[in-house]
Every structure is written in structure tokens, then in C-alpha cells.
């Protein structure tokens, strides 16, 4: 089971300097880059141990495009959670919706990207695991299935190194960039993927009550949105013709800013 998200290509987002809003029109939607690592790893694991891969996403009908990419990469089944009732969900409501779906379908292993590049919370994976009552390993950079078939060995990135965690299955992993290099689907696979069905699930399909999902199910509320005062730069840029002088000035700055006192 792989959970994915369609996100705007954040690098393409621009700010309307006058209105202080995001210019989202013309910004392409893509499969969240971290989810590609999750799908790739799922395909590799399936190709060794068997089974099949279901990808799940929550979003509007356009999010089908992200699912087609997953199918082209090798996923077997794709589910789009799309219902007006799901709209406005925060991370809790999103995790709840995804967890209810995963529970309904049954699973051995759940893989998510470690974060989505638009929201950047790193929360949905661990929250799903907690709701499902299974352990999780986050920021995974290597996975090996153990010979007993009941556990796996996951290498988790930490601030300064890594941990090796032996974790029994079922469990949830969140994929970091170091996990693998995602395949680029061939044109033929892309065309075949488009012919595969995408199942649409609604709140009713997963048996969600009104207050559980979407905005009513959310715990956080956005009270205000604003654009940050962006770095204007406009700093002092020196030419290296006087290298000694430039470095001297740089040292002054370092003394001021870099000192711990």
C-alpha cells in the first residue's frame, strides 16, 4: 500500500508582489517527489516477495494524473479518494481518511513519502501508523526484507547519522530521497497505465462519518495567510579584484555573526 499526493510544482510558484498572493495559475501539478521514492521501493519489494501494490491518494479528480504515473511505474491498483466531504482536511483528517481506507482494503506494508513538498509537515505517515496501531520507521534510506517474512530491517536517517531498526510487519515506512532512484516510466507503460481503471472512493465507501473527515474533522484552523517578507538581498557584493580586502570584510562579518557569544 502506497499513499501519494499530487502537489503543485513548488519551484514554479511565484508571488504576486502587489497583491501578496500566490500565483498558482499555470503552475503544473506533479506527483510529490518523495512519493516517487515510496512507489519505486514498493515496486522493488513486490518484485522480490510478490503481492500487489495499491496506491491511494486524496484529492480532486485531476489527482488521477498522479495515480497514472504510479501505475506506469508499476503499481497494480489505484484509488482516488474524492468527495466534497474530504475538502479542507488538515493532517489529522487526512491521516484518518487514508488510515480508514487502508484498513478497509487490508495491507502488509504501507509506504509514504517522508513529506509532501507543498505542506512539508512530515506528519501524515506517522499519524496513519498510529491510527492503524502499527509501528513505523521514518526517513528510511534502506530496506531489507528479513528471511522470516515477518519483519524487515530499515535504515533510518537521523540528524547526524542513522539507526538500524528491525521492525515486524505490518508496519509503515516513510521514504527519504536516499532510498532509491525512481524509474522513469517508458512511453508504453505510460500508455498502458492510462487504460487501467482508477477506482473512486467517497466518504461513504470508507464508512466515514461527517465529523471525521475534511474540514469538520480537522483539528487545526488557518486563521490568516500572508506572504513572508522575502529576503530582499541587496547585500554588499564585492569584486574579487581586491581579494585580501574582500576576505577581510568577510572576516569582520563572520566575527559579528558567527560568534557564539
Amino acid at each position, binding site marked *: 500500500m502506497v499513499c501519494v499526493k499530487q502537489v*503543485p510544482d*513548488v*519551484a514554479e*510558484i511565484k508571488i504576486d508582489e502587489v497583491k501578496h498572493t500566490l500565483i498558482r495559475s499555470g503552475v503544473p501539478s506533479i506527483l510529490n*517527489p*518523495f512519493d516517487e521514492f515510496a512507489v519505486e521501493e514498493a515496486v522493488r519489494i513486490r518484485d522480490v516477495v510478490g503481492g500487489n501494490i495499491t496506491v491511494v491518494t486524496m484529492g480532486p479528480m485531476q489527482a488521477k494524473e498522479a495515480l497514472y504515473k504510479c501505475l506506469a511505474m508499476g503499481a497494480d491498483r489505484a484509488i482516488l479518494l474524492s468527495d466534497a466531504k474530504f475538502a479542507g482536511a488538515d*493532517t*489529522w483528517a487526512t491521516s484518518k481518511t487514508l488510515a480508514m481506507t487502508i484498513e478497509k482494503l487490508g495491507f502488509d506494508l504501507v509506504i509514504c513519502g517522508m513529506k509532501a*513538498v*507543498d*505542506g*512539508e*509537515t512530515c*506528519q501524515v*505517515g*506517522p*499519524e496513519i*501508523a*498510529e491510527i492503524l*496501531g502499527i*509501528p*513505523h520507521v*521514518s526517513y528510511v534510506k534502506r530496506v531489507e526484507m528479513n528471511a522470516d517474512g515477518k519483519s524487515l530491517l530499515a535504515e533510518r*536517517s537521523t*540528524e*547526524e547519522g*542513522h539507526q*538500524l*531498526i*528491525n*521492525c*515486524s510487519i505490518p508496519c509503515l515506512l516513510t521514504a527519504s*530521497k*536516499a532510498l532509491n532512484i525512481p524509474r522513469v516510466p517508458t512511453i508504453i507503460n505510460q500508455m498502458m497505465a492510462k487504460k487501467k481503471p482508477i477506482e473512486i472512493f467517497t466518504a461513504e465507501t470508507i464508512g466515514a462519518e461527517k465529523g471525521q473527515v475534511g474540514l469538520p474533522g480537522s*483539528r*487545526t*484552523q*488557518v*486563521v490568516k*495567510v*500572508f*506572504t*513572508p517578507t522575502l*529576503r530582499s*538581498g541587496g*547585500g*554588499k*557584493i*564585492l569584486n*574579487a579584484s581586491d*581579494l*585580501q580586502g*574582500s*576576505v577581510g*570584510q*568577510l*572576516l569582520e562579518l*563572520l566575527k559579528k*555573526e*558567527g560568534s557564539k557569544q
Partner: protein
Amino acid sequence: MSAESRGVWVVGEQKGTQLATVTLELLTVGRKIADDLSQELNVILIGPESSDNLRLLEEYGPDRIVLVTGGATEHYLTEIHSDSIASLVEKNRPSAILFPATYDGRDTAARLAARLQVGLAADCTEVRVDETGRFVQVRPAFGGNLMATIHQPTARPQLATLRPHIVKPAKPAKKTAPKVERVAAVPLSNRFQKVVMKSVREVADESGNLDEAEVVIGVGRGLGGKEKLNMVNHLARLMDAAVGGSRGVVDAGWLPHNQQIGLTGRVISPKLYMALGVSGAVQHLVGVRTAKEIVAINIDPDAPIFKVATFGIVGDMFKVVPLLISELESKSTAAANVQATV
């Protein structure tokens, strides 16, 4: 239930017995929030106890210090950390809990939020009590293009992770001796009987801690090769800096993946970011946007990095860096001589 929820909690972080500085930053922020809400400030520290840490925590003004020890707490494991905090929450019902936005802090906070069925504002750059007396959180989204002010209307406690370096640690003037409480960690087997974590091993890589470091040196493709990192690491040691890099550098295998700074890597907020041979693509810049100062050294005068830099040198990094190293070294020798004379 929310009416009785009282108390602001800070969850600290330690590696082995080394207290992370971000803990003191959180205490500084937490003290202000607690005072504004007229509530108590508690700090929770999970892991082996150290008297140095305890003394340090006491100086930053918490009303109560809770030390969670025993079990398998010498290493980080999400399930143990989140369950241990959950058990304290159920007993004491705080109104807010602050975590560091570090690898482990984000991980624990998410699992705990789901356990308690409450909200969590991630990677906040500011938290405060607003003019109506509500605790609100401000966080960036969409690669830092947008800021959102978040409030959690009913669910308590309100959870938030805070980025390191958003405040300078400050000791409060008024000090009262905090109560110290010791509790045993909730063992793994309590909830995960079917599923057991068997082994944990921590191995330190040589590159420094990007989140905690006050100074970060970032290298770009301008570096030219992995062997050139020796020079950069040398400079980093002199400046007490951590080393990260652009996507290009990581993809070329010159630095490990967890040292990538930017959209598909890490987002950092050091006091000073020094970009060496980094051109400054948008994808990279979103990772350093909240750095206080950006220093750029690049041979290309048109490199976009200069547009966001507070100080820049248009020049060859292979000339600038060695000069910088020799200046810093002669200075530290001079300092050592002075000390020797004293």
C-alpha cells in the same frame, strides 16, 4: 475537557547525554507563552539522566522538570517517546506542547498528535499568544512562499514543532527552583505486543548537524569534485560549521543525501549560511530562506545566489577559501598565544 487543560510543555532533545541547544530555545519561547497564558511551564526530557543537563534546564525557568528514563530510552524510538509523553498528557492535561522541528521531534509529535487525536502545526517559525488570548502558530508552506497563522480551536493540547534558531536562548530574570520529577518510560511492549523493535544502532556520519549548527556551509557544483571537500571541511572545523550541499552535489555523490539543502532536501535556519560555488536555484534557496545572513562566494557575477545574499564575493572559491582558512588559523594561533601568556 479543554477548560481544564492547563500548562505549557516543552519536549527537549538530547543525543546520548548531550542536550540539544534547541531545548533551551524552546524553553525561552515556552516561558513567554506560559506567562502570557498565566500557566505553568514544564519541560520533559527523555533519555539517560545527566546532572549537567538538569542544571542547565533549571536556569531557563521551567516550573517543573520531568525526566523520563529507563527502558530503551538511550536511543530514540518513536513508539517509546510518543507513548511516554501520551501517558504524561493523560495524567496532567496540558494546553500546549512544543517540540523541536528536528528529525526526531517531528516524528514523535506526529505520532503523539494521532494518539491524542489533536492538531499539530509543523515547522513553526513563530508561536505566540495573540491579542484575543489565543495561542497561535505561524508556519511556512509552499516552499516558504506563503505563511499561515494557525489556531487549534477545541482539541487540547495544541501541538507545534518549532524550527531551531527562531529565538536566542534567554534565561529569565526571575528564578524559582523548579520541581523535578522522575518517571519511568512506557515500555514498547505495552501497545505493540505483536510488533517488537529488535535492535537500534546509532552511527554518526562525519558531516555535522545541519539543523542545530549556527553556521552552515553549503557547497554547489562549483566545488568540482569530492576531493575538494577536504578544503571545505577544514574551513567548517575552523568556523564550527556543518556542511551541506545543493542537489547537484548530492546527486554527484559528493555528499550523503541527508546533507542536501533545499526543496527535496532539508530546510534549515542557521544564523549564517555560506554558499560556496552554489548558483542559487529556487529549489535550493527555499531551503535557506530563513537564514539570518547569507554569504555567497561564486565566480559567476550573474549567479542568482547574489540576489538573496547579504554579503557576496564574486570570485574563485579556490582562492577565497584558502585565504579565509589562513586568516582564521593565524587568528586562532594569536588567540592561543594570548591565552598562553595570561
